[in-house]
């Protein structure tokens, strides 16, 4: 199957899923007890003002009608305007998505770069000293609450040691952000040769990235270890030993046969980091999508919440398409399914 056809089939499969996601978030937001009208109107509003706001927002229409209008807009690529800021939700999300993706990329990237080799090494000698040591470490990574870890890191590295800049967002207040190209200060700084901006962006990134790396590495270590141990005890590896394959070749075999399940796991993990991302962004005042979503939920900004959830769903689907494709590259025997 060609890649184009694969993409097409995937897209067709995804459409009903997306409609479902839109429907469920739409309904959940509305029955969730959030009251945007009260917030917009303020404490001194009269009943008439209430009614007119409700009418403006279309909240007096029956639910099915509200939904069909919204769905029609979404299909045309219009996620509506935020009721609180009157800004276009899609524009807001686009800007912030890059910011969050940058953090996610470095955090999970480093988490995987550390976690996968560590997990493999632990698997090659289960219950050995290294394995026991990493088990304690990853238990720590599992049990630590994300926001607490973030706060402690700020306390230690900014307040006590002074090694890192204050957690006030993505760039020092003293540096002018570079011209916008991609939306990532680091990349834009490098592209426009604004080294001061790139350096400031990088040093702001360090703490939240480490924080995310720690939180995401723990499950990666655990899964990688489990996957590799399973491969090590498989018929394939047994037979490889029986054929006298040298240790080096056997390790390569184990690596190749573990790659796909590990990758798939990392993909699942990435799509499941939504909550973690929101917390880290909040603590570090990151201003990305996670923080945006959290704010939208807290303030009952219906259109923003709906847009946020929809974008997350699209993101998950994209991640899995990418993984399918990478698996296809690693594992030529598999069909794109």
């Amino acid at each position: 199957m060609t890649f184009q056809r694969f993409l097409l089939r995937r897209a067709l499969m995804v459409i009903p899923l997306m409609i479902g996601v839109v429907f469920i978030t739409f309904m959940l937001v509305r029955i969730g007890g959030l009251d945007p009208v009260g917030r917009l109107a303020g404490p001194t509003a009269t009943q008439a003002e209430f009614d007119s706001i409700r009418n403006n927002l279309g909240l007096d229409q029956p639910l099915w009608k509200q939904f069909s209008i919204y769905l029609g807009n979404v299909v045309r690529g219009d996620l509506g305007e935020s009721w609180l800021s009157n800004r276009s939700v899609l524009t807001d999300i686009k800007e912030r998505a890059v910011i969050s993706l940058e953090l996610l990329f470095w955090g999970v990237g480093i988490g995987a770069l550390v976690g996968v080799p560590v997990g493999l090494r632990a698997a090659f000698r289960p219950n050995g000293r290294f394995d026991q040591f990493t088990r304690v470490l990853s238990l720590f990574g599992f049990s630590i609450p994300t926001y607490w870890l973030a706060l402690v890191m700020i306390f230690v590295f900014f307040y006590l040691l002074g090694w890192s800049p204050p957690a006030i967002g993505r760039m020092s207040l003293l540096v002018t952000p570079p011209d916008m190209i991609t939306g990532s200060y680091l990349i834009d700084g490098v592209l426009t040769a604004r080294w001061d901006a790139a350096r400031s962006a990088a040093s702001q990134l360090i703490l939240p990235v480490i924080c995310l790396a720690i939180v995401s590495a723990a499950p990666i270590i655990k899964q990688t270890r489990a996957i590799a141990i399973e491969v090590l005890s498989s018929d394939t590896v047994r037979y490889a030993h029986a054929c006298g394959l040298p240790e080096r070749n056997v390790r390569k075999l184990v690596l190749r046969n573990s790659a796909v399940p590990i990758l798939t796991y990392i993909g699942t993990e990435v799509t499941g980091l939504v909550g973690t991302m929101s917390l880290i962004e909040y603590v570090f005042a990151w201003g990305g999508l996670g923080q945006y979503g959290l704010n939208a939920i807290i303030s009952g900004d219906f259109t923003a919440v709906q847009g946020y959830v929809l974008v997350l769903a699209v993101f998950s689907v994209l991640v899995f398409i990418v993984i399918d494709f990478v698996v296809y590259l690693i594992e030529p025997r598999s069909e794109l399914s």
Partner: protein
Amino acid sequence: MTLLKVEDLHTHFISRDLDNQICIAKALNGVSFSLEAGRVLGIVGETGAGKSLTAQSIVGLLRPPAKIVAGSVRFEGRELTDMPDAELNRIRGNNIAMVVQNPRTSLDPLTRVGDQLVRLHQIHSGGPKTASHKRALEMMEAVGLPDPESRAKSWPHELSGGMAQRVLLAMALMNSPKLLIADEPTTGLDVTVQAQILDLLRSLVARFDMATLIITHDLGVVAHFCNDIAVMFGGSIVETGSVRDVFAAPAHPYTRNLIAATPERFQMGRAKALGGQPPDLYNLPSGCVLQSRCAYATELCQTTVRNAEVAEGHFALCHYAGRLEEQPAVKINA
């Protein structure tokens, strides 16, 4: 020189239980046999008897908690039990080839069949790649895989069970082994395919002149295929000898039952059908391992049994070997 000589091999599973007490499962208890070049030895026995474990112990494929605690395995005069892995790796897949039970899951799923054959040849025999490639095609031809050129390009998951087993046979032949160990090579295949694979195996053994150790549940396979037989029970070889001798005059009660329990064509006695629990390896009785299941057992059977030679080259591990008929009347499992 004897090609393979296994002497008094003891393999145990050593683990710790919840109270951190050491537990020992005595899975092999003094296995001895030898195999001359060009001979075919069949090991039979019920499930759990230790047949596969014997094969794994020979080629050093035990995994913890299994461990050889005593005994020796000599292959061409070299001791294998204390050989370092790197050196063993030069023998495995090369001088000693193995054919295993689950061919489809045993092949590397991410490598084309032909490449696996070439890789195996390169690792052990070296030489130019083109020569390995040529050899791979020859061996695929020899094991009766149609159209080797295109088969070499298939992935393991595209093969049927029978074809995969043929590929494993081709793998085994790649480096012209002196000893072939086949652990239940036909279990899990269709009955008709089983027969084909066995016929193929037999012709290959003759053609390539390999000593062969074949592990099976099936006495029929032994009768048609092997020169010698070793009957295993509870981690011991209870009877061994040439196939002709053992089938004509089984000297051990267990062998008699085994033969009686197989279809008529092998039926030579009228002993009771097989039955009963396998012995508890963590807690073996003193004396004969069969005593709780043996119709001939007496008090004497609780004492250490020695291998008795009932005829030349025909041994049985029983106090009453060779004189079961005249065995005294004090039976305890009557």
